[in-house]
């Protein structure tokens, strides 16, 4: 039906009184209700399966989830994540500024590093480091093609954990470098110009002016990377390091309860990721200072506010209700058909 045919066939409605006085009929959304019902059924089915399917063996899960071996393993996983993310992002930041530097040599070295370490699958690289002593029996300090002043047995210098941290760090640094560089180039050029015009020393320009603003772009991706790294530590189980996934495997290899122990590992990964996500939220908020005119409330502040609103509403409930202005008999704005 077109507007013109409406105008032609329907007599003009009597001019409505003030539209503000009319009753508002909310739009109906039947499709939304159908979708909501379908999803509710699916979720209920899933929950029912999780609770009642005996294969999950929730009892075994309960026995192991807080056992010493598993808690120890979680600690190893956390350490690997912490070392690799801190060292990885430090090295990554250096690489990022090398790529942004004016020296073609530094640019090329950084570019090549990123190219190489992004090309090698992490697991391949980790096995390389694990076999470092086969590659270089001794490591030393000296002049290339010249004398060596100091050297050490490579196995005694880096243990298995050391090899894992190095592997994870080098891998992480390549990605971190690109994330940091992306953040730095996203900062408006006028900022550096203003800092230069004010005579602010070069390092201070980067630390005080550029990086804090770059953090806004860096943090969401960096959060992704660190969470990815947390789960990526499970790859070092190939090196027989007692982190979470390795210990879960050891235990189910012994007692055959594969599913509940995978659940144990899953639960811990979910918990750790959740903690990291919360940390990320607050760190992002801190670096968003000055970005919004009115910063949004945190979920906690919002919860407190709605609690207060509920209380206030409850307090009002007992008071007599003031009737709304009497509505005119429904008087449609448009002509009815």
């Amino acid at each position, binding site marked *: 039906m077109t507007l013109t045919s409406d105008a032609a066939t329907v007599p003009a409605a009597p001019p409505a009184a003030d539209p503000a006085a009319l009753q508002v009929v909310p739009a109906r959304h039947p499709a939304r209700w159908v979708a909501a019902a379908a999803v509710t059924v699916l979720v209920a089915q899933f929950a029912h399966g999780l609770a009642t399917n005996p294969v999950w063996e929730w009892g075994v899960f309960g026995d192991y989830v807080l056992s010493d071996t598993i808690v120890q393993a979680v600690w190893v996983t956390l350490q690997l994540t912490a070392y690799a993310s801190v060292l990885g992002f430090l090295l990554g930041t250096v690489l990022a500024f090398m790529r942004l530097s004016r020296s073609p040599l530094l640019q090329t070295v950084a570019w090549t590093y990123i190219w190489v370490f992004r090309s090698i699958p992490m697991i391949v690289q980790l096995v390389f480091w694990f076999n470092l002593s086969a590659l270089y029996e001794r490591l030393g300090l000296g002049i290339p093609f010249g004398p060596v002043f100091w050297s050490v047995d490579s196995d005694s210098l880096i243990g298995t954990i050391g090899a894992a941290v190095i592997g994870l760090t080098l891998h992480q640094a390549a990605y971190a470098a690109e994330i940091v560089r992306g953040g730095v180039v996203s900062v408006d050029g006028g900022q550096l110009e203003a800092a230069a015009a*004010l005579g*602010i020393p070069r390092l201070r320009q980067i630390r005080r002016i550029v990086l*804090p603003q770059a953090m806004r772009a860096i943090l969401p991706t960096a959060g992704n990377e660190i969470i990815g790294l947390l789960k990526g530590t499970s790859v070092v189980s190939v090196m027989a390091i007692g982190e979470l996934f390795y210990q879960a495997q050891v235990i189910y290899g012994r007692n055959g309860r594969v599913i509940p122990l995978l659940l144990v590992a899953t639960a811990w990964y979910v918990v750790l990721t959740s903690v990291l996500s919360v940390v990320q939220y607050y760190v992002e908020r801190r670096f968003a200072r000055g970005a919004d005119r009115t910063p949004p409330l945190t979920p906690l502040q919002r919860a407190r506010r709605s609690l207060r609103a509920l209380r206030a509403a409850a307090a009002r409930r007992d008071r007599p209700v003031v009737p709304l202005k009497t509505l005119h008999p429904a008087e449609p704005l448009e002509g009815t058909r």
Partner: protein
Amino acid sequence: MSDVMVDVRGVHKSFGPLDVLRGVDLQVRAGQVTVILGPSGSGKSTLLRTINHLEKVSRGWISIDGELVGYRRSGGKLHELKEKEILKQRTRIGFVFQDFNLFPHLTVLENLVEAPVSALRRPRKEAEETARRLLDRVGLADKAGAYPRQLSGGQQQRVAIARALALEPKVLLFDEPTSALDPELVGEVLDVIKDLAGTGTTMIVVTHEIGFAREVADTVVFMDGGVVVEQGPPAAVLDAPRHERTRAFLAKVL
């Protein structure tokens, strides 16, 4: 002349094949206000940026209070200064940008304190006192704790002026300070600049505000095609221009 504060001699600047400045000579005396007018693309902003070495000159030289900008003369040669020395020179040359370039993640007070503390090694407390005094002077004493994005454009530009003043520069350069502002906010920024002119600060202002030039300038410089076409007191240049190009420009903007 001993009281020449800014001395620009034979300055050329090209970006690749594009010659933006083609031999500019300009002398600004201490305590005077010089307004540079000219059509867009005439090189006036580039000239301003060469004065604090944000752009390196291709030929010619610039000195401020007798000191070469970006170079040191010794043994019959000009030695390019290191970045550190250039940064130090810039603390004596205040620069106000068209789009303010305040640091959005720092409060207004932190914006003003940053350079004096990090570049001039002033004690923070002293720098904060100076900053509050300057904010009061530009009429924004109550905004010290605000972030730049919480301010209007005019207020931001006034903060930017205070930030430049915090280093107590010998010269203040303004690069179209009101061009990014809504018309009703132009006045408040021009008032601050007028106020500074009254205190004997040496200033070079690139602008399109002819009325401001007439009222405040000691010297009006008209640039076109990368050279100074004519200069003189506002009455001479604005009301009785000698050059056809100046006349044509004024006819368009007045």
